[in-house]
């Protein structure tokens, strides 16, 4: 399934806001970015999928 990506959010809302969404996704999914990962698309995907699991399990 095609999901929304970091690039989608950045294109629509600007990079600053997209990064704020990414941090919020990680916070709500309780993901710590302990591995220094600079790829925001990957971080977004990881947090997005984790939150999907939490939401759909609930």
């Amino acid at each position, binding site marked *: 399934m095609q999901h929304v990506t970091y690039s989608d959010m950045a294109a629509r809302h600007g990079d600053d806001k997209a990064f*704020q969404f990414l941090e919020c996704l990680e916070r709500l999914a309780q993901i710590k970015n302990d591995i220094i990962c600079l790829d925001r698309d990957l971080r977004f995907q990881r947090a*997005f999928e984790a939150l999907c699991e*939490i939401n759909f399990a609930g």
Partner: protein
Amino acid sequence: MMISSEQIKAARAWMDWTREMLAEESGVSPGTIRNLEEGKLSHRSVEPVRIAFESRGFKFHGRNGISRQAAETKTFDGPHGCDEFYDELLSMAQRKGGEIVAIFRTQEQFARALGIADFNRLERLEQLAKHATVKCLLSEDRQLSMDVPSMQFRATSHNPLGPLAQIICNDTTIVVITNGRDFFFHLTKSIETAHIGLNDFEPRWESAVPLIMMPQTSKTCA
């Protein structure tokens, strides 16, 4: 207020619009835009162009100055985030009315985002629906028992937003992020962002299946 041909050219360049695009935005012909930019100004032809730019946040100063207001943003978060967000949304609906469109996973998620914990007490939805038509697109047709006549729900099988949800109320776009328990709301006041969101929403809404409201029965949130 009359604006000058220099201001029209500068604002069009700022938006990276062709004359045809500005003509479409303002509802005048491309020939009229060319005339305006060449200095052939009349109040009647300038007015719709000025309004088109001002609706995109432009301000005109004197004969040569232009500025553009940055989009206003606001966030709601924390234990009272849903209540504060609901007050803000209700106030927007009371001020401007019109239509609120939303994309959520379930009716329950939508209700929780508005701070509703007891699904027998839907006064918040009723209040909102008094001031605006609410269209809510869901990706699951699992329903609460609610009967709020001016609130429409439709279901679609494809929702790329996943744990995100979205609400658009007039010129304000709200991104909602949730883990099912906590909610984070980010509001952006920008006509452009709202236009993009509405253009995404409309075809999805048209192809979605209307949900028939179930009569309210006794049901309480766990």
